[in-house]
């Protein structure tokens, strides 16, 4: 079976299933139960949506960022789709990251430093509210990046920063 292309329509569907399944058994074993209890508690009541932007997608050189829109309600993902640069975007938290940093995350870089080193940035939304769920967010970010997918070679010279 061919792997879906990163930020393609099919990929969004696989991401949705992966988020519903949650972190892997291995990831769960590596951290304390109290950490996962907290994760589960946040997820069960998470009322918000994320728009996770990718700048400089190789498939769309020169265009604005595309977003992965993820809506949470009742502990499950109720919507997960790619929103193009020209489509309307309405999410509780809008974040953005360059394509090479998405790819690095996929290749095994950790989600904690991706946040702490400002590779992914909050562009819109209440920062203090967002951080109440930060452990939930970074674990989900790791799940999204771990989805098997084809990451095309970046287009040279288009890195925003």
């Amino acid at each position, binding site marked *: 079976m061919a792997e879906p292309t990163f930020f393609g329509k099919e990929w969004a569907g696989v991401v949705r299933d992966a988020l519903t399944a949650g972190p892997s058994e291995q990831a769960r074993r590596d951290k304390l139960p*109290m950490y996962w209890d*907290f994760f589960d508690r946040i997820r069960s009541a998470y009322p918000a949506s994320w728009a996770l932007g990718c700048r400089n997608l190789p498939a769309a050189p020169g265009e604005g960022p595309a977003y992965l829109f993820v809506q949470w309600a009742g502990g499950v993902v109720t919507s997960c789709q790619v929103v193009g640069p020209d489509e309307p975007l309405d999410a509780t938290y809008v974040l953005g990251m360059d394509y090479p940093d998405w790819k690095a995350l996929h290749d095994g870089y*950790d989600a*904690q430093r991706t946040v*702490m080193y400002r590779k992914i940035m909050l562009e819109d939304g209440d920062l203090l509210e967002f*951080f*109440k769920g930060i*452990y939930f967010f970074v674990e989900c970010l790791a799940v999204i990046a771990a989805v098997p997918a084809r990451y095309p070679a970046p287009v040279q010279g288009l890195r925003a920063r």
Partner: protein
Amino acid sequence: MTQRKSPTAILHEGPRALSSDQVREIEESDLAGVLHVDIDDVIEYVHKDLKSLPGFTTLYRRYLKQRWDVYDLDFTQDKADWDEKMTEDERQSFIAVASGFHHGERQVEIELPVFMIGASEEEKLHIAAQIEDEARHTVFFDRFYREVVGLQGDDIMDILDASFPWVSETFVGPFGLLAYQADEVRRNPYDERARVRYGTNYFLWIEGVLALSVMKVTLSYARWRGFLPAYYTGFTATCRDESRHVQGGMRYLQQAVRKDPSMIGEIHNTLRTILSLSGVNSRQIYYEPLGWTEDEVRMLFFQQLRRKLNDVGIDLTPDLEELLRRVQPVLAGG
């Protein structure tokens, strides 16, 4: 460092007055003399001036007298202690705690410059000095990890990457928040509300509570066992630097609230986020080989938070009191 006080003595001591000799020893010791300064006295010293906070120019002048040369430290004895006297359990516990500092010092160094833009002229002097302090603290840990622990790398980031596996996943709570708050201040450097939220996380929580508490754990271990003299010297000097940072930070928050009493809401909101995360651990850190239990360390956190809030005159709301009560352990036999 000749006396062998119990590591956790501070939990039972409560507030105490420092003699003028003790204050002089803390304020005026040169780097070699810092080896003989008691870490508990330095922690007490942080609070000494909180009720009548010194001005930024005074803090800047203290900085000029107290700065030390991180390259003057000689880690030869530390290396021998690390390799020959410390047990593997002690080394693992020590490194699990120290790695948070290795990364923490670097983070507070790089996130501070944006805060200087919107500061008063006198505060700018103090912040410029603090940036230099934090850079020096970063080098201190870089040297410790290379020369004592034995990590290898071509540059500072290599060594940070090498120690990152020891950093807990929950580190991204306060330090990721600080990174994003710094970005908020970068976008609007004169937004006083954003600055107060940033200052609450940086100066009150990260420096005033987390850093001072956890510093104390490794330092009281070194004092108790009589190990790691260069680490004790450099990190106690670091703690003296932190006392200026916390005093400057508390002065900033106090002035902001006096100018606009509604700023207290920004402090409360920030604490609400921080405290909601602070009860969660992703890893078990075994403090026991260092002479502490996890509950005692957490107890120290909340003791440090309470004292600073009281001294600066920040009251908590009932919901924050409740949150604090829930995350604060009860010290058995305390």
